[in-house]
């Protein structure tokens, strides 16, 4: 029976098994279907109830003197004027009738746009008076909330043209009712003032433009959305996680608790098939859950007419982006499923698993919650923060903000990297004898050094986890180093970056490997290589930079180069010229050659030697290598370079020839960029050749490159004889 058939069998059974469970169904279908409508209706109702209550309920005004005193009378006068306006305006009718009403009072002249808008249907005003003896008492009333606002007419209220009415309003901005009452009063006063203006202007037969020389229409283009728009992505992401939790527990700890795990392990099925089948089920349910959640959100927004709650400027949910959002949630669901499965595999019982899951959820909430803050943006470090980047990406897509390809790719690729590490851990944990038949504490056997057996090579799990941790760490470190000093000190950042590289790329994996008793020579592929391999490496090193350079030029000519990329390339070139050649060779040649080969070829590719096919292994390690460079435009070239170096390492079974190639490649390329004059012996690109080197040079480089490949390929048989066994 093939792997695929077994996995399919397991997948089918586990899916049926889980879907028959009421708890899965509730978590997956019932909750999302009801959560969002309830959530949105609830918050909408809270808002409308509040505003309606405030709009219709009488505003309690604290003022000086009794209800029949002069101050109360002034307020009553104001209300009388307002009610008069309301009587003239069409009451509570659609906005389209407003112009007719205004033309009646101002023939030929449209009132100011602002007034027209807000004059559509002036709401009724109800006031009630709270008598106070002094301004202090009024303040006290507002503070202790026995009145909504305090109003003081400094000189009563008159409408004679030579007097200005000075009105003081006291309110508490932190108190919603008080704030609304204040806004309403301001509105009432503005309407009355506008009406009086109109009347006076008409009396003088002046055009409307006489008093309003400006008409300003400001459109707010900022994307910050309403509260729900901010929270929704977090909820969506959390629901995706929640979707994975129950199946992950049921399928691992639950299976052990019910005593079926032993049965299944007595069947002729490799553990990896089992875990893959189960993992796919968890991921399926998480993705289904995510899709249902998303669908429910959209349906609620669409049918409920809640667009304004999601985004400002009446844009609403970009329905066209839904597929993209779902696509982004898939690697995320995969990641969370794998994490949950890895965690739950350690547990013997349902309860224990729930205990393990809780801290994981908390750990997830921290970056997720941070990302949900309105001020957090999808850039810089946030691009690679697990969970956080997904919350942000979902938010941007949901509110229809533009998301760049490179941001999108960074989020997706980093999530995919984390996901594969988590899957590897899950497989490892689940298959562990001490975990399956956990009679002793299983966590300990993974971390207690006395219980660890020495091994000649890092396991795939270890390599993936180290890489997955290094990736954001390296990203943070770089952005931190670059931000600590200004551009003036770009050199300093460069020096620090490359000084940090040996620590991150070599020391960290070496420590991890040493702790788990992995042979360091094996871990980094430090074996010797044949003479042919060395010679081939030198040939490749001599020529690969020309090939790479031509590819970059080709890419720029065909796909263009963004100004940003061109600028940063130019800046880098200037920077390089400031370095002494020796430093340049060490910083940009030697250090990356040694460190990157050690990590990507020695540690990562080496770990894939057992169990992963050659092409897959080389492609995967090259992809990780490329992603670690963070620059989208360089992705294709670094990938190909990584693939070539991976092939060299795989074939020669040592990273050392690759170090030579990498060193020569980097050194010549940077020197040729920084000190063009040294390379004047080479024929230069001709005019109109779009920066391509002359064909002769390129062809000889290709010839040398091919010769190098042949030499290295020939160095293989002796070495690969061992790997076949």
């Amino acid at each position, binding site marked *: *029976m093939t792997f695929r058939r077994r996995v399919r069998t397991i997948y089918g059974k586990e899916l049926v098994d889980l879907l028959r469970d009421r708890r899965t169904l509730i978590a997956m279908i019932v909750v999302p279907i009801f959560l969002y409508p309830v959530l949105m209706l609830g918050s909408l109702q809270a808002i409308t109830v509040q505003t309606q209550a405030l709009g219709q309920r009488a505003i309690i005004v604290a003022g000086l003197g009794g209800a029949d005193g002069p101050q109360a009378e002034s307020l009553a006068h104001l209300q009388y004027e307002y009610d008069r306006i309301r009587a003239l305006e069409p009451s509570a009718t659609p906005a389209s009738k407003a112009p007719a009403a205004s033309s009646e009072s101002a023939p030929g002249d449209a009132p100011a746009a602002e007034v027209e808008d807000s004059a559509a249907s002036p709401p009724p005003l109800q006031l009630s008076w709270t008598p106070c003896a002094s301004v202090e008492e009024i303040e006290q009333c507002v503070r202790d909330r026995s009145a909504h606002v305090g109003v003081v007419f400094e000189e009563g209220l008159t409408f004679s043209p030579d007097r200005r009415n000075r009105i003081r309003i006291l309110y508490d901005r932190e108190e919603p009712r008080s704030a609304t009452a204040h806004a309403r009063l301001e509105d009432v006063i503005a309407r009355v003032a506008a009406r009086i203006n109109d009347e006076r202007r008409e009396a003088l037969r002046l055009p409307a433009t006489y008093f309003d020389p400006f008409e300003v229409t400001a459109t707010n283009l900022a994307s910050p959305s309403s509260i729900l728009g901010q929270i929704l992505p977090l909820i969506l992401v959390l629901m995706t996680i929640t979707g994975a939790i129950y199946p992950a527990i049921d399928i691992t700890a639950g299976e052990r608790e019910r005593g079926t795990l032993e049965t299944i392990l007595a*069947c002729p099925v490799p553990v990896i098939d089992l875990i893959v089948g189960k993992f796919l089920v968890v991921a399926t349910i998480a993705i289904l859950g995510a899709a249902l959640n998303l669908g429910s959100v959209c349906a609620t927004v669409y049918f409920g007419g809640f667009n304004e709650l999601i985004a400002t400027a009446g844009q609403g949910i970009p329905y066209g982006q839904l597929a993209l959002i779902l696509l982004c949630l898939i690697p995320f669901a995969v990641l969370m499923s794998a994490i949950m499965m890895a965690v739950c595999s350690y547990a013997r019982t349902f309860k224990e698993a729930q205990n393990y899951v809780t801290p994981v959820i908390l750990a997830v909430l921290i970056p997720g919650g941070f990302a949900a803050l309105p001020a957090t943006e999808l850039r810089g470090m946030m691009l690679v923060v697990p969970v956080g980047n997904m919350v942000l990406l979902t938010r941007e897509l949901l509110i229809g903000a533009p998301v760049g390809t490179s941001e999108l790719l960074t989020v997706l690729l980093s999530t995919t990297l984390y996901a594969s590490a988590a899957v590897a851990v899950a497989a490892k944990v689940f298959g562990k004898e001490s975990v399956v038949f956990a009679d002793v504490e299983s966590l300990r056997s993974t971390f207690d050094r006395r219980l660890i057996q020495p091994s000649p090579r890092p396991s795939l799990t270890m390599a993936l986890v180290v890489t997955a941790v290094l990736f954001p760490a390296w990203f943070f470190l770089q952005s931190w180093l670059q931000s600590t000093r200004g551009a003036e000190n770009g050199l300093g950042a460069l020096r620090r970056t490359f000084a940090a590289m040996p620590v991150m790329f070599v020391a960290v994996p070496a420590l991890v490997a040493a702790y788990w008793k992995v042979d360091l020579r094996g871990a980094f592929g430090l074996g010797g290589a044949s003479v042919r391999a060395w010679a081939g490496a030198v040939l490749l090193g001599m020529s690969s930079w020309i090939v790479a350079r031509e590819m970059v030029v080709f890419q720029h000519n065909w796909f263009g180069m963004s100004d940003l990329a061109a600028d940063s390339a130019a800046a880098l070139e200037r920077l390089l010229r400031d370095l002494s050649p020796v430093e340049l060779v060490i910083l940009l040649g030697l250090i990356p050659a040694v460190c990157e080969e050690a990590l990507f070829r020695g540690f990562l590719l080496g770990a894939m030697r057992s169990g992963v096919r050659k092409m897959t292994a080389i492609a995967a390690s090259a992809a990780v290598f490329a992603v670690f460079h963070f620059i989208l435009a360089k992705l294709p070239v670094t990938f190909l370079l990584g693939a070539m170096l991976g092939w060299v390492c795989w074939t020669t079974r040592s990273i050392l020839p690759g170090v030579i190639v990498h060193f020569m490649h980097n050194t010549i390329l940077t020197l040729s960029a920084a000190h063009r004059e040294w390379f004047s012996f080479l024929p230069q690109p001709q005019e109109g050749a779009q920066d391509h080197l002359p064909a002769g040079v390129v062809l000889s480089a290709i010839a040398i490159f091919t010769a190098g490949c042949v030499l290295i390929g020939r160095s293989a048989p002796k070495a690969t004889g061992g790997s076949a066994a």
Partner: protein
Amino acid sequence: MVVADNLVKSFPVAGGQKRAVDGLSFRVARGEIFGLLGPNGAGKTTTLRMLSGMILPTSGSARLAGYDVATQPFEVKRVLGFLTANTGLYLRLTPRELLQYFAELHGMDRPAARRRAEHLVDWLDMREFADLRCGSLSTGQRQRVNIGRVLVADPPVLVMDEPTLGLDVISNRLILDFIRRAGDEGKTILLSTHYLDEAEMLCDRIGFLHHGRLIAEGTLEELQRRTGLARLSAIFLKLAAEGTEAAAPAGAGS
């Protein structure tokens, strides 16, 4: 059919290794019912798990139907039925689905698996509850499903770890009948149990395990002759006492 040769399994424990099985060697011939007896913690379960290819021996080797348990665990599992009293069933599947699932896991394609499940349902008289979920079945019915699962690939070897632990008289009888019938059909059976009358009744030969070592082995008569006692329970107590004495100086030395 089953050959264990100097099998050792040690588990890492705080401060070193604990040998749960310590140099165990024995043979079981085809068609024989072999009983493993021993006090709690003697290493019976560990031995049976190693013989079923579920855990790897620390050293030594074992063969089951000619397959090496360490290097060919899948071949071993293919010719083996494994049953313990606390083996659970998938409670949300029906017996029919469950049998079909295990048949497929043993490499049958879907139609063949369906036919096999159908056959077992008939043969074990499970018609009336074959389409109910396992969760709603009685213990006796569940045991029948479990027997069906063990027989799904018609394995020549059965490994049973305390299969009757905690069962009532009726379910117990069901299992014992099944073992006897399987023995009559010529299956090789490895059985561990704490119920000595069961062992007395069923087993062709008995191995006595203590602290991971086999301290006595033979037919009931041989054991009776060796110890001069008639009842297996008396023999058991005597051997356990001897084993503890024998182990004490060795334990102090190590």
